[in-house]
């Protein structure tokens, strides 16, 4: 019988199915960070439990760690250094490989997993972090869990799960100039709602997905959680195997015919199918306080929940372009890879951010991305344009480093969440692609990146 890619990975990893229908699924990789992983490690120690196979568990300092140059264990977050020192001690105790604060391979968990070859096609991988779905871009079944589930996965190398439903989202046709994977996923969520993927594993497919490079595929899968899906996944192809080949923890070759079977069979049926015409997608910007409240850059704010209009201080009918901004942020597991930085830098080259922008940051997704960007001189482009250049980490995506934007700021951000207070109390966040952030920072107001990119072309 024809199977989906999800079915193949799920079935292969099933140890047992209970009478009630829940399955015991083996977990190939666990990745922790100091924010939620520390709690799992602490509990595990309190219960006197041990990691079953420590060589398949990894940890990184990315969430609370400071991103200012010259950082150590101290953070601006009160009590933050406790998370760092406790995580370090617990990893040593449990025998877990840790990418520490200033390890040369440190970075955001979902970025370094790919860089190190920790995630591979066909694996199951979990992390106590909702954006673990990013790693579905490799054709792995990778999803976010809570701390208790992380403890379960470490102690037993399994999780107990209800079988999710399957959905295929096809992006057919070609993306227009200046339109990116970020705009694709925001379009899906805006059209089908922030709860639209609930209960499903979403396979992204179609011509426009095949055309994306690996980094853009990670951006697409990254926001499957904002769609309320269990995860997103993309079938591995030549681009995937080329990306993973030679990574430190990847296998020596991908010659085994099993790798080629990691695709949905022709005729495999999904519980739900959605098709989107990629050629009709425009650069997207959020206007409200949920990722579903996003519109094309040349649109007007529609009528939505009163609370969202009030928090964002934007009435229905307001034109999005031209809304004045106070701050700009390029970073996060959504958009902080080298290709993101290159595209933003190409818009900022020879330009300067508007005087009204009081804080502008670029936070590379990993120290490897940072080094590569510096080799290419991108750091100088950003600094000349008025952006601060940082060490890698999650940073102001969520205010966990204890560092905030100026009070009451309206920010444009290449991140994934525009929730109330996500980037700090009272901060109003507009999420968009890195090129839209760059163009808007120059304009000092929400701006269409296509105009700026064209000037360069």
């Amino acid at each position, binding site marked *: 019988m024809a199977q989906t890619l999800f079915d193949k990975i799920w079935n292969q990893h099933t140890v047992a199915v209970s009478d009630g229908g829940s399955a015991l699924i083996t977990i190939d990789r666990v990745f922790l960070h100091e924010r939620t992983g520390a709690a799992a490690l602490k509990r595990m120690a309190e219960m006197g439990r041990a990691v079953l196979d420590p060589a398949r568990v990894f940890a990184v300092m990315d969430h609370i760690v400071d991103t200012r140059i010259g950082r150590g264990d101290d953070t601006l977050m009160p009590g933050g250094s406790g998370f760092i020192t406790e995580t370090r001690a617990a990893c040593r105790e449990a025998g877990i490989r840790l990418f520490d604060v200033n390890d040369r391979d440190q970075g955001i968990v979902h970025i370094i997993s790919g860089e190190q070859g920790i995630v591979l096609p066909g694996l199951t991988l979990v992390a106590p972090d909702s954006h673990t779905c990013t790693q579905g871009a490799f054709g792995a079944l990778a999803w976010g869990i809570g701390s208790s589930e992380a403890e379960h996965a470490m102690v037993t*190398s399994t999780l107990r799960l209800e079988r999710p439903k399957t959905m295929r989202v096809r992006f057919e046709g070609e993306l227009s100039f200046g339109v990116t994977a970020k705009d694709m996923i925001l379009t899906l969520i805006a059209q089908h709602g922030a709860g639209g993927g609930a209960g499903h594993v979403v396979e992204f497919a179609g011509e426009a997905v095949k055309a994306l490079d690996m980094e853009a595929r990670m951006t697409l899968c990254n926001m499957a959680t904002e769609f309320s899906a269990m995860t997103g996944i993309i079938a591995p192809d030549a681009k995937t195997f080329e990306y993973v080949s030679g990574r430190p923890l990847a296998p020596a070759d991908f010659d085994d015919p099993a790798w080629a079977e990691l695709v949905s069979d022709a005729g495999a049926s999904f519980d739900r199918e959605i098709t989107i015409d990629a050629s009709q997608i425009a650069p997207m910007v959020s206007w409200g306080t949920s990722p579903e409240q996003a519109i094309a850059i040349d649109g007007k704010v529609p009528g939505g929940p009163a609370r969202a209009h009030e928090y964002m201080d934007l009435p229905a009918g307001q034109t999005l372009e031209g809304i004045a901004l106070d701050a700009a942020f390029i970073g996060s597991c959504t958009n902080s890879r080298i290709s993101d930085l290159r595209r933003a830098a190409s818009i900022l080259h020879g330009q300067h951010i508007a005087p009204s922008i009081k804080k502008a940051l670029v936070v590379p997704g990993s120290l490897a991305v940072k080094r590569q960007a510096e080799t290419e001189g991108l750091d100088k482009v950003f600094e000349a344009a008025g952006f601060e250049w940082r060490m890698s980490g999650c940073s102001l995506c969520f205010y966990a480093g204890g560092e905030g934007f100026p009070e009451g700021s309206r920010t444009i951000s290449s991140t994934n969440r525009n929730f109330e207070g996500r980037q700090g109390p009272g901060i109003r966040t507009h999420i968009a692609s890195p090129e839209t952030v760059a163009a808007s920072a120059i304009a000092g107001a929400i701006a269409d990146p296509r105009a700026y990119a064209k000037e360069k072309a």
Partner: protein
Amino acid sequence: MTAFPQPFSSIAAPLMRDNVDTDTIIPSREMRSTGRDGLADGLFAPWRYVEADAREENPEFVLNQPPYRDAKLLLTGANFGCGSSREHAVWALAEWGIRTIIAESFAPIFRNNCVRNFILPITLRRPLVEDLAGAEVAIDLCDQTISCARTSYPFEIDAEAKQMLLHGLDAINLTLKQSDAIHDWLAADRPSRPWVYLEHTQ
């Protein structure tokens, strides 16, 4: 943490908003240690307090209103608990005293976190959720019914979650009983997928 209490009865506190996210349930700045305790004070901090730092209560927020201050049952809209996977959101709710959440729908990670901490997540159609606002509601988990003075509804819950909630079962202990099957699976898998099994690198 204990099994879901039976019998269970509570006034139903309505927080009828959609997409309530875990950053709002427990903001990052309220998660001050690696432990699971001391979180109730920061529960819904952006909404519960006029000024979060000064802890000045917002009288308009439902859990600050007299009939609901001791509510153990929260009613809410679609996609409750979306956003960050932080289990601290559930720990904060549990510490505050919430034992049941009835929502139009839940974000998946949050829902699993509820079950692991013996909070009962129930999904009902929106008009039925709204109908329970302010009522004294009894929940029979064995029979899977919700009832108040006016009416009674059945609800769905998967068999394993029900057993775990009813008996306060620890999922890890449950799985450890299947250790032999897991080890057999791993032994059979290792030769066919050697790349999965890494050498220790710490």
